[in-house]
C-alpha cells in the first residue's frame, strides 16, 4: 500500500488528537472527509463513476459483455472485478508494484459481493445455461490518500447505478435455434437495482479509539483496522481485519456498533449527469441513510 513515513513525534501528536476526538484536519473521529461523486464520466463504458474523498481519487468503469453462465448457477450472470493501481497514484505502483495491492482489493470486492442480495444476478441472465451478461467492473486508483476501500465501494455503487445494459430478446426459430436480438431503440435499457449494494466502512484503531476515513498519516499510526461492508438494511456482507496488529474483542464489538449509531455522514454529492437529474438526489439520499 502506498505509505508515508511518520515520525514518532507526529505519531504522538496524531494519537493524542484522536484521543480528544480532534484529528489533524479538524475532523472528529467519526467524520468523513468531503466526498464528491460524479457519474457517467467515461463515455465508452456502460456505467462509470468517479469518487474523490479528500485526495483519494477512484474511477470505476463498468462494461457489460455477453458470456456463458457458470454451470453451478445456470440462471445467473456474474460480476468480475479488477483493480488497477496505476503508477499515477504513486511511483511505488510502477511496473508490478501495485499488483499485490490490486489483487488484495479485488479479492475483497469478491467477498463483499459474495451474497445473494447485493446484486440481483438473475436479472443478468439472458438465456439460462447459455447466455448471460457479465459485468466487468474495473477500478482505477488515480490518487491514494488513504481509505481506498470506502472510496472504491462508493464509486462501484454509483457506477452500478449508472449502468445501462441494452435490452435483448431471445427468439427461437422453427429448428429450435436461438437468436439474440438487440432492441432497436438504443435508449431501451435495463437498469440495475442498487439498493442492496453494500458500502465499505473502514475503521482504523488509533490508540484506544477508532476513526473512520483515515488519511495516510493516520493509517501509519494505526496497526490494525476493521473493514466492514454493510447494506442500507444493516446487513453485514464482509468483515476483514486489516494490518499487522490485533484487536481487543471489546473493540470489535464497539466498532461493529459504531456503524449502526454512526454520525451523519456529510456527503455532498455532486453529479454532472445531464440525462438523469434525479441522480444527485438519489445518490445523496442513499448515502445519507446508509450512514445514519
Amino acid at each position: 500500500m502506498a505509505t508515508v513515513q511518520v515520525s514518532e513525534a507526529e505519531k504522538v501528536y496524531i494519537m493524542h488528537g484522536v484521543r480528544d476526538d480532534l484529528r489533524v484536519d479538524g475532523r472528529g473521529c467519526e467524520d468523513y472527509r468531503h466526498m464528491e461523486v460524479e457519474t457517467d464520466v467515461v463515455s465508452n463504458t456502460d456505467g462509470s463513476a468517479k469518487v474523490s474523498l479528500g485526495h483519494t481519487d477512484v474511477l470505476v468503469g463498468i462494461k457489460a459483455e455477453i458470456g456463458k453462465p457458470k454451470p453451478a448457477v445456470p440462471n445467473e450472470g456474474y460480476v468480475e472485478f479488477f483493480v488497477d493501481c496505476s503508477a499515477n497514484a504513486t511511483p511505488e505502483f510502477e511496473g508490478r508494484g501495485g499488483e499485490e495491492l490490486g489483487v488484495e482489493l479485488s479479492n475483497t470486492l469478491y467477498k463483499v459481493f459474495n451474497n445473494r442480495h447485493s446484486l440481483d444476478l438473475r436479472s443478468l441472465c439472458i438465456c439460462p445455461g447459455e447466455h448471460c451478461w457479465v459485468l466487468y467492473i474495473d477500478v482505477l486508483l488515480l490518487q491514494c490518500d488513504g481509505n481506498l476501500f470506502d472510496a472504491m465501494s462508493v464509486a462501484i455503487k454509483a457506477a452500478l447505478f449508472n449502468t445501462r445494459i441494452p435490452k435483448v430478446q431471445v427468439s427461437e426459430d422453427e429448428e429450435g435455434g436461438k437468436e439474440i436480438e438487440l432492441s432497436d431503440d438504443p435508449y431501451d435499457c435495463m437498469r440495475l437495482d442498487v439498493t442492496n449494494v453494500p458500502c465499505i466502512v473502514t475503521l482504523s484503531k488509533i490508540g484506544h479509539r477508532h476513526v473512520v476515513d483515515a488519511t495516510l498519516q493516520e493509517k501509519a499510526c494505526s496497526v490494525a483496522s476493521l473493514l466492514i461492508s454493510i447494506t442500507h438494511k444493516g446487513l453485514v456482507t464482509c468483515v476483514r481485519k486489516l494490518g499487522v496488529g490485533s484487536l481487543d474483542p471489546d473493540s470489535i464489538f464497539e466498532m461493529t456498533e459504531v456503524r449502526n449509531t454512526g454520525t451523519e455522514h456529510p456527503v455532498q454529492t455532486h453529479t454532472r449527469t445531464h440525462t438523469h437529474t434525479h441522480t444527485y438526489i438519489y445518490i445523496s439520499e442513499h448515502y445519507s441513510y446508509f450512514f445514519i
Partner: protein
Amino acid sequence: VPADRKRVRGPEESQCPLLFLPPAAQTAEPREPRAGRGNGEVRPLFARCGLVSQAKGSSYLEAGNTKILCSVYGPREPERRDEAGVRSGRLLCDLRLAPFSCGKRGAWIQGSGERDLSLALSESLHPAVCLHRYPRAQIEVNVMVLENDGSVLAHAVTCASMALADAGIEMYDVVLGSALRQDGGASLVDPDLAEERGNWLAGYEENRGGVTLSLLPNLNQVSGLHADGELRADTLSAAVRTCMESCHKLYPVVQQAILRAVKRKAPPPEK
C-alpha cells in the same frame, strides 16, 4: 494438420458431472446433519508437531477430513530487502491448496484465492510473532492444504502457529483459528465443505454467511477476523463470541501437541 473427422472429440473444456445434478437431488436427500455432532461442537482435532525433518519446525493437523501440513524455515537472511525489514524481521506466509485437495482439480500455480488466504494467514499470525527479536531476517511459513473439507483458513492458522512454536520462534502467544457458518437461525461451528457452501439453492433467505476468527487466547486479542455472506449485526457479534469460545476449546489439544514435540526433542535440562 488436417482435422481428424472420423474421431469424435471430447469437448475442449470439461466440467464435473456433479455440477449438473438437478437442484432437487441435492436438497431432497437430507444429509446426515453434522455427522453426529452438535451445532456448537468442533470436529475432533488431531495435531502433531515436528513431522518434517528438514524444516526448522513443522506441524500436521487434521479436523475431520480437512488435512493441513505446515513447515517453518528461518530465521534466515532475507531475499528481498526493504526499509521495514532492517528494524524487525519479516514473516512470509504462503498457503497452497494441493491440486487434489478440492472436488475440482486445482492448478499448481497459486491462484488469487490462495493468495488471499495467504494474506489472511499472514495478517492473523503477524500480531503473535515477536518479529522485533529477528532484525534483518525472514521467517517463512509454508502451509499446504492436503484435503479441503471446510474451515481451511481457521485450521491453517492453528497449524501454522503450532509449527512456529515447534521451530522455536519467539511468540507472544499461540494463535488459534475457528470458523463458523451461519445458515439462517443455525450457527454451525467448524463447518465442513458442504456446510460451508451452505444450502445455496434452498432459497434467498438472509442471514447466511461465514466467519473465520483467529484468537490469541492468553492475551485475549483477536488477530484476524474475516466474514462474508450476509449477516445481521447482532448475528455477527454472536458469531464472534461463539468463535472465541470454540478457539478456547482447541487450546488443550494444541498445547499438548507442542509440548509432546518439546519433550521428544530433548530431555529436561539439568537444574
